[in-house]
């Protein structure tokens, strides 16, 4: 089994618990091993950069250093914000030796050293690129036929540019959805922001963004919205009722992590992928 240095991030231990258990269950099923980093710390999400940039990079670097110590090649983050932080920090460590020196000076206190040699990837990339869509298709026990899935990329998985796909119209999520037998729907706001931490600091703005996103997904006849980030998932799922109150709508569309959908297609028991514990029941709106 290929091993990956797995960085769950704080959300996956609390609000995103279902993401974590489904991610591990799916990885297990597909023959890849996610080895959780020991004693990892919070990456700071979007809250550290408003205070001190160097400290923000240092916090992320501690996790990268811990990963480098394991000798594994890939640093996997399931949360888009953690992924974006780790990716950009890793990049800067490589191209800016002054930054690396300063950070390593701080890391000495925990007997760590970072070089920037990890390959930082989002969890979804491991399934699409390493396991491969063909392999996944083969292992699908219950293709999700007729299920119209809105792939919600959100912002930080594609932006800023990470030397990958087209930032305006990426297609990798759709391909994965097709591979598990479901029908990916095409809708304009798939990479539009969910509001992120604005849900706390400027609720009005965030609710407006969630509202527009829900409206587009629902108008495009989605049965379920699939996410790749716990922040996006919480904003779009947990606050749907607030959106309804604020804008006089009556959205009740289920929002699930892509790993949960994969788990269902691969035939993993609901308990192992956190289905049923979802706030809004999927059963209400699946076609089958």
């Amino acid at each position, binding site marked *: 089994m290929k091993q990956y240095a797995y960085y769950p991030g704080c959300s996956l231990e609390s609000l995103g618990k279902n993401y974590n258990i489904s991610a591990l269950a799916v990885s297990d099923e597909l023959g890849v091993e996610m080895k959780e980093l020991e004693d990892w710390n919070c990456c700071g999400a979007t809250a550290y950069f408003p205070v001190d940039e160097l400290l923000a990079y240092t916090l992320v670097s501690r996790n990268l250093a811990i990963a480098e110590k394991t000798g594994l090649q890939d640093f996997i983050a399931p949360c888009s914000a953690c992924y974006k932080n780790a990716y950009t920090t890793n990049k800067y460590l490589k191209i800016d030796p002054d930054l690396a020196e300063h950070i390593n000076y701080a890391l000495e206190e925990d007997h760590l050293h970072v070089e920037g040699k990890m390959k930082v990837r989002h969890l979804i990339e491991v399934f699409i690129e390493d396991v491969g869509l063909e392999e996944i298709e083969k292992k699908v026990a219950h293709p999700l036929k007729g299920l119209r899935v809105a792939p919600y990329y959100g912002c930080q998985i594609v932006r800023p540019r990470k030397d990958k796909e*087209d930032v*305006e*119209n990426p297609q990798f999520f759709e391909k994965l959805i097709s591979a598990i037998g479901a029908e990916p729907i095409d809708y*304009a*706001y798939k990479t539009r922001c969910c509001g992120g931490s604005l849900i706390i600091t400027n609720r009005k703005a965030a609710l407006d963004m969630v509202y*527009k996103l829900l409206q*587009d997904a629902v*108008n495009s006849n989605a049965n379920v919205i699939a996410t790749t980030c716990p922040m996006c998932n919480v904003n779009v799922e947990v606050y749907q009722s607030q959106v309804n109150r604020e804008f006089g709508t009556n959205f009740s569309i289920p929002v699930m992590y892509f790993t949960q959908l994969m788990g269902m297609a691969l035939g993993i028991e609901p308990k192992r992928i956190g289905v049923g514990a979802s706030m809004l029941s999927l059963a209400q709106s699946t076609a089958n």
Partner: protein
Amino acid sequence: MTERIGVYVCHCGTNIAGVVNVAEVSQWSGEKLADNGVVIARDYKFMCSSLGQELIQKDIKEQGLTRVVVAACSPHLHERTFRNACKGADLNPYLCELVSIREQDSWVHTDKVAATEKAKAIISGGVMRVAHHEALEPLRVPIHPDTLVVGGGIAGIQAALEIADAGFHVYMVEREPSIGGHMAQFDKTFPTLDCSACILTPKMVDVGNHPNITLLTWSEVTKVDGYVGNFAVTIKKKARYINEELCTGCGICWEKCPKKVVDDVFEAGLGNRKVVYTPFPQAVPKYPVLDAPNCTYFLKGTCKACEKFCPTGAIDFEQKDQDITVQVGNIILATGWDLFDVRRIPQYGYGKLANVFTNLEFERLGNAAGPTGGNIVLRDGKTVPKAVGIVHCVGSRDQNYNPYCSAICCMQSLKFAHLVHERTGAEVYNFYIDMRTPSKGYEEFYQRLLEEGTHFVRGKVAEVTNIARVPEEEGKLIVQVEDTLIGKQRRIPVDMVILSAGLQARHDAKEVGKLFGISCSADAWYIERHPKLDPVATMTEGVFIAGCAQGPKDIPASVVQGAAAAARVLGKIQQKEISLEPVRATINEEQCSGCRICNDLCPFSAILFHEDTMVSEVNPALCQGCGTCVAGCPAGAISGTGFSNEQVLAQIEGLLMLNLKRLEAVPA
């Protein structure tokens, strides 16, 4: 040293004298370099002036100078001035050396003491070198009076007509079935709103009928050998499958042809054409072309309708591509531009949202001979838009795509606005960052559009979407943009969006440039000899560029460049002979081992390899004297007249002042 060397140190006003102590340098040269042959050293305010030059000439005559060293600005500027001055005093011009103590000294240093010492070293180098100079005569090569013009757009047409009207023969090569270029696709031209075809076709007809022009359409250049005055160009005439001797251009073949394909070139994908076709009714020449890859006969062996119905039997399915070689003295490249691919900007919706059009598509919409008969309608072919949004700067002025401005899109966008007003009465919104209307009549044209009630929104469009948020937006295309003049994000519903896509170099510009021995800039436009003072010549003698191939420009500027290139060519032809700089590399045959390393190093493709004798030879007419092969030859078999090993090593010795140390070491 039996040479008698004169050293002249220029003040260049305060440019040199402000940093270098020119009087001290001049005096030093006269004293310390006397043992190296310096018999007189002077300094003067402006050596390049007539008085300065006369100073040199006087000394040559009175002091019997055999060599001259001028320490002044860069040779790029005044090498020719001083060489001519020497020539005027009957001293071979190549016995004069100009060393730069301005660009390489006074302009780059602030430490006056150090700069003065450096000037001395530079002059010392020049003096040591010039002793090894030889009297050279420029090469004279005959100029073949024929000219090759590549590209049949407006720039190429202008160039060809000027040369042909002057009585000299021109070969015009065009890769499409007809000449006319992009201008033939347009409806109207700014700012006069002349019908494009009406002003273009008379010139096209002139080219087609001109006794001095051999028109080769549906053809491409495949090889260029030779050098200025003597190019041997191989042209592939692609098979038209039409016998031009028999064809009358009656048009029955394309009428009867049962197969239609999308016309991606002339109709910009908006309309169709037949498999055997002429691209547009006024095509020159009138002969159609058969598109073999799409032809039923070539694909399946059936049909042949065109052959059956042709009254003169001009269809020839057996026709083959033909290679011909022509001799020409000069070449003008006027190969034009390609359109920026707007699909690279997915947020503008082209391809996804039906009623988003490119500028070329809109030209075809508006053109009376186009697929909609000149009616401005949506993709359904019948609905007339009530509101149109025109987006400026698509793919231009953008680090993510092309950083340059495409020069014509503001005027083109204004022109579209006018046409939409005129033909549909729709509301028109132009979304711009700046309004670039510099030339004659252009600002007035903008004024006219303001008076017509065009809505100008200053903001670069962020997205074009069909996701409605309010009822007024349902079923419309929404242009989302910040109206920067009022500081608000606006969503403006329209029926049609026109993207003013930018101009780009032809997709194969680099390969084509290599054929002719010229280079492209980073943006792939051809590089001119000097961007301000010599925009139509290239660094390769005998090859000129004109029109958009050199960079985005409007029709008047393309015409001007075509005429300028023609004038340069005519000037060369008139001289019957041109003289080339004798500073060239030569290969010592006996030392050459035939390794051919130099062949590929040469940036001007000036080195030939003789298979029979297994040695390389430098073509002196193509060689620009860059010295790359001299450095690259592992056997040291190549040396340059004007930069021989002795000359360069002597100059280095002089720069390091080893000549002085040596002299001082000699006991008195």
